[in-house]
């Protein structure tokens, strides 16, 4: 039995051998199961382990003017992100980098929040850092191994404030937008258009992001690109060529009265192509790209002049005298008047309508005028009567048909819809069925009352006047959205006469402007009543009067009078038609005289009884 027994020992050794072989067989089978049977599954798992898909952002499309000058481009930039193994280590790294990055508490909080959500990804800390910051950060790398600095093309607007409202800017997509899925194919961190063309044509400009795979280690640190064969190339965004004439746009900015608020729109009436669109004051969109510096943002948002507000398409002003042309066109189309028609009551400085007296802007009166003269002198009394002849229903109907109640259709985001009643229902709703009288017609007839228009919509209307057959496409910077065509419905002859009467408005004053004597400018000034301060000045004009190629409208807030605006507009027209050498941006020897023109204060719309029971004050307007 003991060790000495050879036979017993041999038996035990055999049992031992069998046990050893059995053990090794079990081990071999375990490996067989993993490496032969499960090989495919584990191979996939090991690939998933080491490869991480990384989106390759598509380069955003360029935006150019009509001649190809670049208005928005991509320049090399850098973004900084941090890889952290825990929230605490992220906080420590942020503390260490604070002297370089100078993050405020809001940014810190959002960085930490982002980390909580995707701890395995690098947390973007700041976009668009300058090269100086990058090199300062690189020095800190030995102490901050999780620091990731990537090249990240930055959007740049070479003409900054000149094209700010037109081109817009880009910003990182918000979580709200991601949730609603407003931007197809966007992901966290995608830059999307925030205003202007950038926003309106975002889908085209953005292109499609590609995917590449990077090899990562167990701590998610990037080791290298996995190679080209696994890369899906991004589809670059389309280049958007606008109809803007950069030279003209720059001229507009330089010629616009310094320190004034207002806007200018220049359009080719034949096609509806917008040649220039400017809103003052402007801003530098480059500071808004990507992450906005909070102090910068606060100063922009709190600015009393609201530089982010696009006054060309978002601000509504009473259209005032320029609207008289619309009344004239409606009346002509309905055959109520011809150019030689005179009204029953000649202008003696005012017009008695039942118990109220509506004044003309000219106290002395204009006498018994024809339509042509009424347009030329902007006689309010004439248009009061013309409005009454049209009737409120007809006026509202025709005005709506001419597009005064709709968006102009320009391809820019957040255009404000003008206020223009579509029917008398509007008054019933607003003042009650008996709360108003047909006296509102008189206000509407001279562009006051329940009628406020955006500059772009008024320019659209003058584009119709200026176009060969009284029709025009919606104003556009790239392409027309829908063929929302309005027509004046006038014969070519009437149209020509209407233009001629507008020429007469300006002609009287053009004598002094020798260098543009050969240029026939047709236009209309206007003064929009402003309850908050000095009146706003309008001027809308087109030229050459017999074959219009450009229509320019401008509004200058607190300009008091349209004649102050007129030189700006005529200079722009001259610059466009005669070339860059013809005019200088600022006035000087070049002056333009246009007739004085003003609008009486609108009559308050009150029920007659209430008016009589009131203070007894005559509800007539202030007269200039």
């Amino acid at each position: 039995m003991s060790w000495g027994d050879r036979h017993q020992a041999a038996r035990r050794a055999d049992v031992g051998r069998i046990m050893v072989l059995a053990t090794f067989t079990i081990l071999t089978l375990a490996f067989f199961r993993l490496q032969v049977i499960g090989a495919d599954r584990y191979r996939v798992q090991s690939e998933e382990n080491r490869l991480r898909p990384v989106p390759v952002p598509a380069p955003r499309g360029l935006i150019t003017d009509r001649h190809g000058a670049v208005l928005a481009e991509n320049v090399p930039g850098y973004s900084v992100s941090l890889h952290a193994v825990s929230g605490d280590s992220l906080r420590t790294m942020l503390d260490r980098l604070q002297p370089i990055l100078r993050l405020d508490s809001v940014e810190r909080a959002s960085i930490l929040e982002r980390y909580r959500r995707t701890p395995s990804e690098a947390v973007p800390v700041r976009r668009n850092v300058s090269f100086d910051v990058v090199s300062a950060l690189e020095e800190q790398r030995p102490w901050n191994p999780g620091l990731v600095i990537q090249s990240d093309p930055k959007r740049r607007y070479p003409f900054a404030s000149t094209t700010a409202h037109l081109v817009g800017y880009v910003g990182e997509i918000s979580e709200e937008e991601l949730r609603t899925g407003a931007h197809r194919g966007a992901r966290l961190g995608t830059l999307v258009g925030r205003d202007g063309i950038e926003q309106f044509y975002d889908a085209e400009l953005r292109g499609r992001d590609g995917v590449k795979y990077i090899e990562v280690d167990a701590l998610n640190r990037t080791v290298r690109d996995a190679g080209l064969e696994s890369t899906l190339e991004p589809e670059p965004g389309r280049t958007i060529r606008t109809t803007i004439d950069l030279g003209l746009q720059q001229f507009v900015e330089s010629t616009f009265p310094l320190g004034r608020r207002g806007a200018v729109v220049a359009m080719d009436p034949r096609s509806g192509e917008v040649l220039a669109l400017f809103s003052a004051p402007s801003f530098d969109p480059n500071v808004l790209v990507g992450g906005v510096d909070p102090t910068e943002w606060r100063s922009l948002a709190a600015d009393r002049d609201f530089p982010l507000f696009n006054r060309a398409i978002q601000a509504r002003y009473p259209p005032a005298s320029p609207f008289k042309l619309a009344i004239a066109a409606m009346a002509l189309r309905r055959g109520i008047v011809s150019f030689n028609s005179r009204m029953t009551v000649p202008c003696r400085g005012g017009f008695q309508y039942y118990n109220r007296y509506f004044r003309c802007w000219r106290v002395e009166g204009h006498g018994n005028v024809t339509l042509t003269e009424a347009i030329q002198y902007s006689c309010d009394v004439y248009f009061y009567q013309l409005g009454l002849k049209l009737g409120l229903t007809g006026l509202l109907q025709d005005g709506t048909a001419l597009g005064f109640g709709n968006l102009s259709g320009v391809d820019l985001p957040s255009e404000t819809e003008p206020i223009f009643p579509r029917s008398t229902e509007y008054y019933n709703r607003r003042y009650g069925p008996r709360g108003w009288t047909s006296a509102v017609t008189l206000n509407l007839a001279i562009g006051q009352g329940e009628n406020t228009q955006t500059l772009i919509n008024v320019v659209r209307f003058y584009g119709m006047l200026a176009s060969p057959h009284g029709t025009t496409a919606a104003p556009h910077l790239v392409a027309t959205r829908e063929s929302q065509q309005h027509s004046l419905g006038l014969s070519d002859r009437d149209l020509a006469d209407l233009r001629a009467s507008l020429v007469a408005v300006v002609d009287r004053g053009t004598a002094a402007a020798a260098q543009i004597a050969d240029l026939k400018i047709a236009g209309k000034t206007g003064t929009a009543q402003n309850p908050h301060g000095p009146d706003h000045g309008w001027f809308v004009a087109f030229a050459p009067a017999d074959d219009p190629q450009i229509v320019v409208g401008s509004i200058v807030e607190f300009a008091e009078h349209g004649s102050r605006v007129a030189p700006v507009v005529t200079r722009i027209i001259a610059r466009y038609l005669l070339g860059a050498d013809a005019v200088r941006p600022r006035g000087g020897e070049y002056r333009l005289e246009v007739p004085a023109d003003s609008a009486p204060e609108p009559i308050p719309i009150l029920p007659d009884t209430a008016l009589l029971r009131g203070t007894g004050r005559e509800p007539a307007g202030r007269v200039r």
Partner: protein
Amino acid sequence: MFGKALDSAMPLWGVLLVALGLTLLFSAGVTEVPSAASGIWKRQALWVGIGVAAAVIAFRVSPRILEWATPAVYVGALLLLGLTLIIGTGAGTALGAKSWLAIGGVRLGQPAELAKLATVLMLARHLGPKREPPFTLTQLLPSLAIVGIPFVLVGLQPDLGSGLVFAGLLFAMLFWAGVNHWLLFLLASPFLSLLMAFSTLSWGVWIVLLTVVLLWVRPYVVEGLVVWVGNLAMGLLALELWGRLAPYQQNRLLSFLNPEIDPRATGWHIIQSKVAIGSGGILGKGFTEGTQKRLAFLPEQHTDFVFSVLGEELGFLGVLGALTLFALLILSLIRISQRAVDPFSSFAVAGVAGILLTHIVVNVGMTVGIMPIVGIPLPFLSYGGSFLVVCCLALGMAARVAYEARHSGYTS
């Protein structure tokens, strides 16, 4: 014929395994990100040099001198273990355990490795002279004491893996001594009871089974009662003992049962090792090309999980080759043990076979998830100086035993 080749070729298997080990350690150091394993093969080569010297010395020492010196070696090893408990430091995977003996910050080695060999020698010296194998549990007590003392000292470090190895060598040598299989079963029963205690049902079944076996084998009544009560106590103590395990040991046992419990932490080792081995397929990803290893998904790729590197890079064929080498080594040792001319040598070699087999099964089984993660190294392949030198010593000694058997003049 073949048998003779087997035992004379034993050193060859050792040399081949050491060469494979250096190769794998070279690969383990090839990573994308700097790791503790880079360049480690050079240091291991240094240890191989020391190991070869140790093997040569062991070969030159007569088993008689060894037998004579055994008590001193055993006591010395125990003293070192005791010293380790007092001034030991942690390192590597077992940072929390006091398993290293260091002087002035220089880690000299892990006394537990030496203690394994010393215990084998001491047990061989105890079992060798016996004419009859132990019949009763009482007669097993001295053997239990010889293994038990270092077992407890190592367990206090705490080092679960080395504890397992002591159990492995004890059962291998008692088996070789010819102890009745049922007696071995009864000896192991309290520990099996501990394992079965994870659920009331399995433990109930176990106690019933044990009762049946006791009635069948019919040991002395007192011994039978002791075994039965011992099982009962172990079952009841299970919870208490579980609470005394270090948290990392609990986690390892838990994630052995279900690696997905905590895939980023404890289960990580098992999952990543299985992914590494499985993705190797039949032919492997190529030497040094293993992505799991390169990108640091595979933990401890130069120590506990060096076999996963082999599986990933050389595939199933490489695994088959390595396992064959290990099997040949164990089979050679069994044959040497069987043919040894004196009982001390025979038991010593059997004990060495027991140590190596336990290490191989636990370590390799762990990499494929059929064994819990207890951090014990793989002989000849894992990086680690003390254990390599101890293994070389053991093989040198076995080679001497084989040499003496060949030249003793006996024929089989």
